[in-house]
């Protein structure tokens, strides 16, 4: 919700028996605890309930790099954030309205993100001397008045949970593990949420595990009833968030990873190719794509966990050479290793999709944290002149369309295509109106079979693509490789002029793509004017909301968001040239802004924050306002 709007209080106006609930446009809740506390589960279920009850949502998990760091430590804290509202929710939220903290470390790590006056729900039972010490607290924050700026709801959730699950005779350890469900039950009450889907899910997940399912259900119900029976401190009467005004249709929630997996698979079907060979090597946060695609065998998807990043890229290239769709995926460090192989695909002009789930770097950096700093790597990170196509999804749901587009371009132009997603996009989720996939356009691949006049590097006059030939085709036997190829025969060539010609042709082929993609449009605002905010990738939500707020106040600002980073849409220079000033927010030290200046000769200012987290709406909003004030 907008911080400028003060929460109102309604006396039970929504017909329910509950009184004193605040009505809010949107609320941001974060569940935080130890990595073994089940916070991801509680948060994800909370998000699903919010979505099922018609709210727009955006969710984002924030988990530590360590799998099970020592319990109770700050570096073992795992969190899941849900932003839900009655209006278009486009980011996981600038700051928290409610923080649920199941131990002192979770409070310590997350408190800074809570807005002043925000609500904290803590499990007092976990604030033992030992846990306080592990979290680095000298005195208990529950007692030293340091939480005075917030609304503190301090409950002994441990004891309340143990009491609720007592009849099921679980071990102490299993009983305590139900705390997440108790907290979830309470949170659902606080926001007027339903709990049926969660109860159904719990029953499924723990079916066959004796009392565990029943105990979890009991914990949810107990947490919920705790709120309902007015055991809650009166100050926290709960909130009402109305349903959002979403377009009519069938919905589900989808993460960027799922949407990309399905988009690639939909692209595979549209191409008419028999098989996708998806080759990758485990790396955070890209492995989820491997896991998602591994479930799609029945759609012709074969996943190959290679021995290393290089092998993954090479296997994908070998697959494309064999007439399948070759896809490889990684994060920045892995893409660095794949560089030489991608160069081979550039030189031999084979389709290849390279997905980079960008993360904070350089080197290992912060593996679970997001960044957009591999744009230069995608554009230039190979030896010699090795141009490729590069595109970036803007939102989790956009990953579907981008996945399809990557397949279309790779197979039509016989080129590597980079898809730049990131740690945020791959795990963030939002509601998705399920498209009618069968009605989406096909883009069938035609393999060449005619030997007449063939050599491997004759080109289509429009796309400049060379023909794709499946080995096994009689009469078209040929040899290709990393050595420069003669433009006229396809045989190896060290001829100086030929190399110059082939280098230019490879670049021109990528530029030709611009004739086969949509022109750049303006996402919000007018098509020229004083100021445009130009973004790419996962900054979409924050830029879009910031521009929306400024425009609501009558400011003349536009939002232009690029899906295509190589080539640029043909009208981009002209479009951006129509603005007096360009601001380019990026979660890197200034990459797109550099390319805009260098390639299009535009004046543009960077807005750069590299914190491992997505932009906050207000960080962009304040820069827009300042820029327009300077103007006036």
């Amino acid at each position: 919700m907008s911080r400028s709007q003060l929460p109102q209080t309604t006396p039970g106006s929504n017909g329910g028996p509950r009184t004193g609930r605040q009505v809010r446009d949107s609320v941001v809740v974060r569940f935080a605890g130890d990595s073994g506390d089940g916070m991801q589960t509680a948060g994800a279920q909370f998000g699903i309930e919010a979505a099922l009850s018609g709210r727009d949502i955006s969710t984002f998990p924030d988990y530590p790099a360590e799998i099970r760091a020592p319990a109770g430590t700050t570096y073992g804290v795992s969190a899941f954030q849900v932003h839900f509202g009655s209006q278009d929710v486009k980011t996981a939220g600038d700051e928290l309205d409610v923080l649920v903290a199941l131990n002192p470390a979770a409070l310590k790590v997350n408190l800074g993100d809570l807005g002043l006056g925000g609500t904290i729900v803590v499990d007092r039972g976990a604030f033992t001397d030992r846990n306080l010490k592990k979290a680095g607290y000298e005195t208990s924050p529950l007692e030293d008045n340091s939480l005075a700026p917030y609304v503190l709801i301090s409950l002994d959730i441990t004891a309340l949970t143990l009491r609720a699950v007592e009849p099921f005779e679980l071990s102490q350890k299993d009983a305590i593990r139900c705390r997440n469900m108790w907290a979830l039950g309470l949170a659902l009450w606080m926001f007027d949420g339903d709990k049926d889907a969660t109860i159904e899910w719990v029953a499924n997940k723990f079916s066959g595990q004796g009392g565990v399912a029943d105990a979890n259900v009991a914990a949810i119900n107990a947490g919920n009833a705790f709120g309902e029976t007015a055991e809650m401190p009166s100050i926290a009467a709960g909130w009402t968030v109305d349903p959002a005004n979403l377009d009519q249709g069938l919905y589900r929630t989808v993460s960027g990873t799922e949407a990309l997996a399905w988009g690639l698979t939909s692209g595979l079907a549209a191409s008419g190719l028999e098989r996708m060979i998806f080759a990758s090597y485990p790396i955070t946060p890209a492995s989820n794509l491997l896991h998602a695609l591994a479930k799609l065998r029945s759609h012709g998807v074969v996943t190959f966990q290679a021995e290393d990043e290089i092998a993954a890229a090479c296997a994908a290239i070998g697959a494309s050479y064999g007439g399948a769709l070759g896809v490889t995926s990684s994060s920045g460090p892995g893409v660095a290793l794949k560089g030489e192989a991608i160069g081979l695909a550039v030189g031999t002009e084979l389709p290849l999709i390279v997905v980079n789930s960008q993360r904070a770097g350089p080197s290992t950096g912060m593996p679970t944290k997001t960044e957009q700093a591999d744009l230069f790597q995608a554009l230039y990170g190979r030896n010699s002149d090795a141009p490729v196509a590069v595109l970036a999804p803007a939102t989790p749901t956009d990953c579907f369309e981008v996945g399809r587009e990557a397949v279309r371009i790779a197979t039509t132009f016989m080129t590597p295509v980079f898809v730049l997603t990131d740690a945020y996009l791959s795990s963030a989720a939002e509601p998705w109106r399920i498209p009618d996939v069968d009605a989406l356009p096909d883009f069938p691949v035609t393999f060449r079979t005619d030997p007449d006049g063939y050599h491997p590097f004759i080109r289509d006059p429009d796309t400049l693509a060379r023909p794709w030939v499946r080995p096994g085709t009689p009469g078209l036997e040929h040899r290709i490789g990393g050595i420069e190829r003669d433009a006229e025969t396809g045989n190896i060539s060290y001829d100086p002029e030929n190399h110059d010609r082939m280098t230019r042709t490879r670049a021109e082929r990528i530029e030709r793509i611009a004739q086969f993609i949509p022109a750049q449009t303006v996402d919000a605002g007018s098509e020229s004017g004083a100021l445009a905010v130009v973004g790419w990738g996962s900054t979409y939500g924050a830029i879009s909301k910031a521009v929306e707020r400024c425009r609501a106040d009558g400011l003349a600002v536009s939002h232009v968001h690029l899906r295509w980073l190589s080539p640029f849409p043909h009208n981009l220079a002209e479009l951006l040239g129509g603005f007096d000033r360009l601001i380019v927010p990026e979660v890197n030290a200034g990459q797109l802004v550099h390319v805009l200046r260098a390639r299009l000769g535009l004046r543009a200012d960077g807005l750069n924050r590299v914190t491992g987290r997505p932009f906050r709406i207000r960080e962009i909003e304040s820069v827009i306002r300042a820029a327009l004030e300077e103007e006036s």
Partner: protein
Amino acid sequence: MTPATRSETSAKDFASDQDVRWCPGCGDYAILKGVQKTLADVGASTENTVFVSGIGCAARFPYYMSTYGFHTIHGRAPALATGLKLANPDLDVWVVTGDGDALSIGGNHTLHVLRRNVDLQILLFNNEIYGLTKGQASPTSRRGTVTPSTPRGSFSNPVHPASFAIGAGARFVARGIDINLKLLTEVLKAAHEHRGASFVEIFQNCIVFNDGCFSEFTDKAHAGSMQLVVENGKPLRFGPDGNRGLRFNPRSWKLETVDVGPDGVAVEDLVVHDETNRALALLLAELQPPDAPMALGVLYRDPAESYHEAMLAGVPAAGASLSDLLRTGKTWTVEG
């Protein structure tokens, strides 16, 4: 391998129109001939055969074949060939590599392609030197080898390709020599016939940078006494009149060279080659002249399911509607 029949072909039909550019006298010429003859003998078709290579002198091989071919990047041919085989399992795919390509920069891929048992013929041209980069020590160079990069002699112990392959889990390991066309084609045919990864180490003379490095067992003068061509079910016997043999010493767990005949041991006391015996294969692979003969032929053959059979079982062609898939899990309807 994949059976493919075609009307009579000759070795010449497998030669491309490109000029062969190895140094005159290089062992690669003989191997090229051996491979082309093998393909003709087994009735392979040019369209169904693919040669994949990495980088090095040997890696130029695909350009000289009239089949499909892919000259890739240094060390990565096994990985690329794995993807190719998964995409198109009907192809008959050969990987041509060298000692540096397969065991140094590409050592990891060689290990994994073998343990996965990808259905490929992998020909490792071992010349114990880097040829294309002008003569540096390679991972198979013997300790003490003096080269421009090891002026005081190499301090690294060499890897033995056949032992490495057996250790990695290869199910077919064989050895041939560039200049012994008969043995080479026999070994290549066996490799071609084998389903799964077939690993063939071919001793290849680099006349420019490492001339004669295998002469102690390849020279005509020593061939008889220093080569043991193994045959399944036959005693391990070699020498001019079969007057030498290998006996298992249970105390040292080694194969020892013995004289056969009235003054030596009886033939019945020699080890009989069993190509499915992995432990024996390793003992054979480890034999090194001059103390023992060089073991040649099929050292190990024990077929198992190949990688693509397991990976592709039950995978239909793409194209099924995703409509149901997108509706799995929780969905809800928003009314207009």
